[in-house]
Every structure is written in C-alpha cells, then in structure tokens.
C-alpha cells in the first residue's frame, strides 16, 4: 500500500515539474534587435515589438536607433551588453520627432518611447533616450511616457529632453488600472523636467516608486502633480535649475534624498507628503517651501545647509505645527519662516546668522 501510494504521488509530482520547466519555454518569446546575438533578429525596435508571436522579451544590441517607439503589449525591453559596450540609444528619427500622444493636461506630445494602456507590466532596462533637445513646435517632448500601465523602469538614461512646449525625461500618467510604476537606478540629465508623475483623478490612480535615481541639470528634477501616491527615496539631485522635488495634489513620502543647488530644494503645495531625512544643500532661496494651508504629514529630520533665503518656510495653519519639527539648519541666515506661536521643537540650529525663526509675512 505504501509503495503504491508513493508511486501514485510521484506521477503528479513529475508532471508538475515538467509543466513548470516547460512553462517558461512555452511562454517566453525573445527577439533580438541588432546582430550582436543569435536569435530572431530585427533591425528596428518597433519591428521587434510588432512581430508575431508577440515577444515577451526584446533584447537590444548596443547601437543607435533613430525611432519613436510605441509599446502596446506586455514586454521587457532591455539593452544588452555586447562586446565592450552597453549603450543602446534611441534618438529622434532623421525627419524629427512627430506628435504621437496627448499628455494628461491635454497638451500634444512627441514621445520617444510610448507605453499606453497596456494591461500587464512593461519593463524597460538599460536603455538610453537621447532627446537631442528636439523642438516640436507646440508639442511637448517626452523621453518615456507610461500612461495607465504598470511596470519597472530600471537603469535607464534620459538626456537632453527639452522643447519649446516643455520636456520630460520620464512622464508617468495614472489611469483606470491604477498602475504601479517603479523608476529606479536611472539617470535624468539635462532634461527640462526629469520625472513627472500625475493622474487626472481626484483620488490616487497611480502608485510611483522613485528610488536611487540621479537627476542632474534640470529645471524641475522630479515633480509629482495630482492624483498619485509616490515614494521618493534615496535619489541624488544636482539641480542647476529651479526646483529639486516639486509636490502638488498627491500624497506619499520623500525620504533620504540628497539635493544640491537650484532655487528650492523641495516645494510642496496642496499635497500630503511626509518629508523626512533629506539632505538639502546650497539652494539659493528655500530649502523646503511648504506652500500649503494644512500640514497633514510630518516634515522632520531634514538637514538643510547653506540655504540662501530661508531653510523651511511654512505659513499655513498653526493647528498643524506639530507636524513640523526636529530639522537641522546649518550655515544660513534664517531657519524657519513660520506664523506666530511656532515652537522649534527638537530642531538644531548651527551657524544660523540672523534668526532661528521669523514670523511669516
């Protein structure tokens, strides 16, 4: 009986093992763009994406690809290392970028990688998008647009994405699928806006995880507008522009970021972000500008150094003072700008020349 039972159990186990081993083989379709690797090859990324059967993985050889790409099915699009190079770069086509999308505010946009309304995740890895500072007239220029689609953007570089009507390295738009998108380990360099996050919903219709990225030389480096939940952590931002992180109309956390230079380090308006343990250095105007009526989340544990005008400005409701505490101000003229009655609980002032705090107005 025992021997029979053992055999009986072994058969389904063996079958299950076969199924598990065979399943990836049955479902993974990998195609190659370029000639650096054997397999089903295409010369253009878009041709690979459009091929049948639909690829689940598109591997892109090092090279330059003058394309605007639209992704309409779940896929992993990844640049691969070949020989001694790891640069797969999308550049504008010879005829220039054309308008192919609409942003959430209704503006037309010319997008280099467009990911829209895909029901399953789309992942981008190890790719470079060179906007070439292309100007598309009245349309904005976008390096990568995810709209109503989940996925991960990892180790991607966008640079020189700007235009007469605005430029965005990466634009994440929410939607009815309430997607979750992660942007990590990526670089935004000389983009007008490095990363933009927004949905058109009054409640959150997008979850964005933004971590371990570098944004450099941007007018606004990271901006979260309305209708999203965002976690912004451990990014390094070398502003050389206006604002490091701009927050409006959404909720989430901003923690452990390092922001250098620019006009304002972090600016929050009509939002509910916990702003904690960030290091902000050398902003010419405000370290953190809380242009908000009521603080609903803590602003605490931040270190602000060499800020030009005011370390942290908050002139909203005195009933929410307790959310603002335990920050460190170093080497500046004014620490807090706050209404009467504020108490600098737990805060540290080092070399604050004029006032630890001044009243608003």
């Amino acid at each position: 009986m025992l021997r029979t039972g053992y055999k009986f159990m072994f058969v389904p186990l063996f079958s299950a093992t076969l199924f598990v081993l065979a399943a990836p083989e049955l479902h993974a379709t990998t195609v190659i763009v370029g000639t650096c690797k054997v397999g089903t090859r295409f010369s253009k990324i878009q041709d690979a994406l459009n091929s049948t059967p639909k690829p689940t993985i598109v591997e892109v050889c090092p090279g330059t690809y003058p394309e605007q790409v639209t992704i309409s099915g779940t896929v992993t699009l990844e640049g691969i290392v070949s020989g001694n190079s790891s640069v797969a770069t999308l550049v504008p086509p010879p005829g220039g970028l054309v308008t192919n999308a609409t942003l959430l505010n209704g503006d037309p946009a010319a997008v280099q990688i467009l990911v829209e309304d895909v029901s399953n995740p789309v992942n981008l890895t190890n790719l470079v998008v060179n906007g070439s500072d292309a100007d598309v007239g009245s349309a904005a220029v976008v390096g990568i647009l995810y709209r109503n689609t989940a996925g991960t953007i990892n180790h991607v570089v966008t640079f020189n994405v700007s235009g007469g009507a605005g430029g965005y390295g990466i634009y994440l738009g929410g939607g009815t699928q309430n997607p979750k998108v992660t942007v990590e380990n990526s670089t935004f360099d000389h983009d007008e806006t490095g990363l933009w996050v927004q949905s058109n919903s009054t409640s959150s219709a997008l979850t964005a995880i933004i971590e371990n990225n570098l944004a450099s030389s941007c007018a606004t480096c990271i901006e979260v507008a309305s209708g999203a939940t965002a976690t912004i952590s451990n990014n390094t931002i070398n502003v050389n522009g206006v604002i490091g992180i701009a927050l409006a109309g959404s909720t989430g956390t901003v923690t452990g970021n390092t922001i250098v230079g620019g006009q304002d380090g972090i600016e929050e308006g009509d939002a509910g972000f916990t702003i904690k343990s960030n290091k902000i250095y050398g902003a010419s105007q405000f370290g953190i500008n809380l242009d908000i009526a009521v603080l609903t989340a803590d602003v605490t544990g931040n270190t602000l150094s060499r800020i030009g005008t005011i370390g942290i400005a908050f002139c909203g409701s005195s009933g929410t003072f307790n959310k603002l505490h335990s920050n460190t101000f170093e080497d500046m003229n004014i620490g807090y700008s706050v209404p009467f009655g504020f108490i600098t609980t737990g805060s540290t002032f080092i070399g604050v020349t004029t006032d630890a705090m001044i009243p608003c107005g």
Partner: protein
Amino acid sequence: MLRISFKLMLALLISAFVFAFGVQELCATTTYIVGTCKTGVQYTTIQEALDASPLANVIEVCPGTYPEQLTIINAVTLEGIVANNSSAIRISSPAGGLATNATINGSDPAAVHVFVKNATGAVNLTNLIVDSTNNQVPSDVFLVGVLYQHTSGTVNHVIAVHQQANNLGYGIYMEGGSSNPTVTVENCSVHDFDFGGIYVTGPLGPTDIAGGSGVTSDVPTGQITAKVENNIVASLVDEAHNMLFGSSTLDTVTGNLSIGATNAPGNFGMTVDANAGSVISGNSIIGTQTGISLQDDGPSLKTNKMYVLSGDGIFLNVNLKTSQITGNTIQDTLFDGIDLNCKTVGTLVHSNTFEYLAAGYIKSPTGFSGSNTYVAVQNDFTACE
C-alpha cells in the same frame, strides 16, 4: 545584635552618600560663559575663558562675533549656544589678521585660527563658525581654520569657511602623533577653502600626496584614529582636495557629501592614503573632477557614489594587495569610471556599477575581470597599453 547591625549599616550608608557627593563635588564641571546671554562666570573673549583659573571643563559661547585667534592646550568643551533666536557664534580674524603660530606637514609654517595643541585630554568643539575672512596670511604661510595637533576630541557641527590664502588654505586639519589621538569630525560644513577641506594625517603630513612637504620617510602606522562622518565639504578652486586621509591614519569615513565647485571643477572629492583596515564607505561625491584617488594600498573603498564628475570616478595610484574597491556607483560622468592605471589588482576590484559613462574601467591590467554592472557605457573596459 540586630540593632547593632542596623546602626552599622546605616553608618555605612551615610558614609557612602557623603563619599559619593564629595566625589561629585571634586569632579564638578567648571563652566564659563563668553558673552552675556547667560548667567554665570562671564568673559568677553573666548581666549580669556580658556586661560581662566580654575580651568574650565565647559565654555559656552553666546551668539556673536569674536575676532580672535585661539590656542587650546587643555581638555575642554567649547560650544556655541543658542540665545535670542540666534545660533551664530562666529570666530573671525582679528583686525590685524592671523599670526603664524604653528608648523604643519612636518615643516610648513601655518597660521591657525583655532589651534588645539598637545592637550592631554579631549577637546570638543561644537556649534561654532570659524570664518577666516581677512586673514592677511603671508604668501608662503599655510592657513588652517581648525587644527588639532596630537590631541583627541570631537569636532561636531562646526562650520569652517573662507580659509583662503594663496591656495594654501585648509578648513579642518587633524594631525596625529606618538600619542595616537582619537578624533571625530562629524556634521561639519567646510567651504570656500582654497586647498584642503578636511584633512586627517600623520605628523609629517600626507607623504605621498600633494600638499605635504614632500617627506617620504617610513612613518609608523596608527598615529591617529579618526572617524569622519556626515560632513559636507564644497571646494572653491581647482586642484583642491575636499577630503584627504593621509599617511599613518586609520579612518572610518562615511556619510559625507563632497561637492565640486561649479566653475572650477578640477579638484578631488577624496584623496586616500590611509592605513590598512580603513574603510571609506557610503559617501557621495558630486561635481568634482576626480571622485576618489587611492594613493596607497590598505584602505578599502566601498559603496560610495560619484556623480557628474569631469574626470575619473576612482583613480588608482598603487598596486593592490589588500584594498578592496567594491560596490561603488559611478554615474553620469564625462570620462571614466575607474582608472586602474595598469596596476595589479587581483580580484580585489569588483561589483561596481557604471552608468552613463564614456568608459567603465580603463587601463585594466591583463586578465582583469570581475562581475560589474554596466549601463549605457560606451566602452565597458579598456586594457592597459
């Protein structure tokens, strides 16, 4: 019998209390105030408070400007205090400038703004601005904002600025010696210097590195033990070394932010010539020319991040036997990630990440390999030619 025991115990208890309070009285803290913001024994200058008898354990300095050149030779805590909504305790140059009062790097004359000299106990500095504007230091004399020479202690929340003197200005300089002092530099801000930001080195200066007097003798190891954490250092000019860890030092260096000058990016984020066992980890370097220059075998470079540099992320100037270079990220740099400089590295260099660079490793020795991450790198590595 019981009553006698009780009385004996009571007597012992009382004696113990008397002894305890007596000891406390003997070790009582002597605190002086500089300025008038707080009651107590008050002085108008910091040096007067330092020289007063009995010697102070703690000197609290009111917000204000103190045009002084200080010498500290005894254990003390010198701290700026917050009063009247201000926390700016600025030690400025005296009207006549800073006098030459020290020798650094073995033989270089120096004008030191706050000189902590051969103190037998710990000297702690907290919440002070050392502003060496108008220092009037002669052209052949070095300038130092804060110098610890052969003294232990902690420099915490100190701002050293405007140490500019013909490209011979240092912000904070910790020099060891035979007493093997233990020092900590933490939460400080150093900027607008024209040669060195934070230096930690043996008594003969950085022997293998620019900035010393060129002495190349065999210096005994372990002449200073240093912890350097969570500081911000921003350079002003080309050729400056934001942070330098010189010969005969043993360092834990972590959480620091080293920033290059916008219009003069030809400087070094960190220059490392420390002892074996030192670990330089978790630091961020932005916008300098070279991120970290490793001058001697021994210290390890781990999990540091270097961004937007105009030169190499890490430059190797020595064959490696023990130093490890792992887990570092070099991102968005015009040039190269790690210049191995044709040195022998064995398997000690690996697991580094290169993103958006012209090259990952350059001048790689024959047979070099290692598991690394390359993202948008034009040439992952080039060989030694």
